[in-house]
């Protein structure tokens, strides 16, 4: 009796399963076109994003291109040990962090400040012109921006030196690009100049979605313009600011490469060289592929930790998380 019941249950289960798989096959059948569309794209993404990860093996080898992955000698973590004992790597890490933190902080302050003031501007046409002008540098390539920077900062007829001399602040031109003290500021301010207008778009969008009743309520309570800006506008865009901070935190070791590579010359290289340049120099120029790959892995791992960390913090602070 008991056996019979279990048997019939089994057959029932099997029937049910067969039904299920039939349904599934039908569903897959129906979506054939979707699969035809997505699978080639997945293969392309696999080739260019996932497959290169296999190259990380090089960081654990003494890689020689002639011998390939299988012929090269495994050296364990030696490359990392060598990397972390290299003072140039630490110097480059400090440079990278300093420049990207300065760019990040100044970039946020300027973009938010600009958006706040733009938001108070009532002249529609003038507002639009200002915005268009502020987007201009975003569309220039870094190569061209570097060319403009070197023109503006030139000791011979450079605009900045001319202006400062005309105002009487300095007596003879300063070699801005030849001094270590200025370089980080130049990079940070170049980033601000290039992206301030562009980054303000997102804040302005967030500001325009703030409920106007809040402003009215604040006015009734006797709040003036500055109160409103501080307590309503800024608070209103707080979630946007946090999300952008998280997104940018992951890029903390990508402080850019172009400005440093193009404008860092001579003694300035002590403060201008970043990890990306380190990788380029050791990898492509000197052919030390294993060490350069190890530095690259270090960068990726730090990025992932930073994203996960800031994402976690944002969750703790009660904001929507990004991931």
């Amino acid at each position, binding site marked *: 009796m008991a056996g019979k019941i279990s048997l019939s249950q089994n057959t029932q289960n099997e029937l049910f399963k067969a039904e299920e798989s039939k349904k599934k096959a039908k569903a897959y059948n129906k979506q054939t*076109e979707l699969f035809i569309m*997505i699978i080639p*794209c997945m293969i392309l*993404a696999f080739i260019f994003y996932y497959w290169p990860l296999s190259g990380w093996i090089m960081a654990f080898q003494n890689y020689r291109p002639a011998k390939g992955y299988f012929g090269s000698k495994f050296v364990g973590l030696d490359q990392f040990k060598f990397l972390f004992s290299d003072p140039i790597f630490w110097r480059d890490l400090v440079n990278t962090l300093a420049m990207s933190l300065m760019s990040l902080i100044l970039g946020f302050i300027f973009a938010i400040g600009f958006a706040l003031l733009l938001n108070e501007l009532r*002249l529609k046409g003038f507002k639009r012109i200002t915005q268009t*002008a502020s987007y*201009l540098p975003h569309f220039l390539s870094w190569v*061209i921006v570097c060319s403009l920077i070197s023109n503006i900062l030139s000791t011979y007829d450079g605009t900045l030196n001319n202006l400062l001399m005309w105002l009487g602040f300095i007596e003879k031109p300063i070699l801005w690009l030849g001094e270590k003290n200025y370089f980080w500021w130049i990079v940070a301010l170049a980033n601000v100049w290039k992206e301030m207008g562009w980054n303000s778009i997102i804040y302005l969008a967030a500001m325009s979605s703030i409920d106007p009743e809040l402003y009215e309520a604040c006015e009734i309570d006797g709040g003036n313009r500055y109160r409103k800006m501080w307590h309503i506008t800024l608070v209103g865009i707080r979630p946007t600011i946090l999300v952008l901070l998280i997104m940018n935190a992951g890029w903390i070791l990508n402080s850019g490469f172009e400005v440093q590579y193009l404008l860092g010359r001579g003694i300035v290289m002590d403060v201008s060289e970043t990890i990306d340049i380190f990788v380029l120099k050791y990898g*492509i120029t000197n052919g030390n592929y294993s060490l350069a790959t190890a530095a690259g892995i270090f960068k990726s791992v730090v990025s992932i930790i930073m994203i996960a960390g800031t994402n976690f913090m944002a969750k703790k602070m009660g904001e929507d998380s990004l991931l």
Partner: protein
Amino acid sequence: MLKNRIKAVLNKLEPFLFNGFNIAFMLIIIVVMVYPFWNTVAVSFNDSQDTLHGGITFFPRKFSLYNYKTVFKNHLLVTAAINSVLRTLLSTVFGVFISAVIAFVLSRQEFLWRKFVTRYFVVTMYVSAGLIPTYFLIKDLGLINNFLVYIIPGLISAFNVIVIKTFMQSLPPALTEAAEIDGAGYFRCFIQIILPCCKPVLATVALWCAVGAWNSWFDTFIYCSSKESLTTLQYEMMKMISASMNAATNKSGSDIYGGGVTIDAVTPVSMRAAVTVVASVPILFVYPFLQKYFVQGITIGSVKG
């Protein structure tokens, strides 16, 4: 009494003061943003020998088209311009299309692998193998000194996919339901219904793709620097800056590039100014007209998909 009066006057004056200050500030911003480029345009139209005396600010002093003539007579720079235009057109068209295809599939709620495939693409935004492994991949694929290296590796951008996907998800589902009842497949839904509705977001993504392709020089530098016929405008520009930076730090460096391009007595400064204008004007002419779209596009992208 007096205090209250002063306060009342100040309160009345405040809007004028604030707005006056604000407008003045914005005028300064406009000058700061536009002047460096404007100045370069002025220099590029100025006589090259005259520029050496310095003092060119807003307008050319001795108008001349000779700098541009020299640029367009230079075979290397003309090749570079053609390559830049070609790579920009091709990678924009294919890049936008592929992003739209992926976004369409991922925006279908019923798609069986939706979650997995979404993650599969999102991960590519954060994990990158780095320069060296990518270099070896390109080498193994035979893309070194090959025009295709400008197009294929950058085709898939997860960020663009997410922006387009978010837009597609905001379209009313009724749009496609009617077509599905009529027996239209996914291909037809995509081409005939969804794509035409996505014009604003596609314009935004197209602009991003075009700007990225037009402005990049690093791939030329790494993968194609030994083949002159594959050079691009930005890479030529980069060589000029390197030369001028080297010349500024060690005087002997000025011959490195000076000899090749600056025949006919066009100085490196004027040459660089003219190439700067040629290499940036196409995009600067386009973006003000697309402003409405990309502002909208960024707003969509910022609302998490």
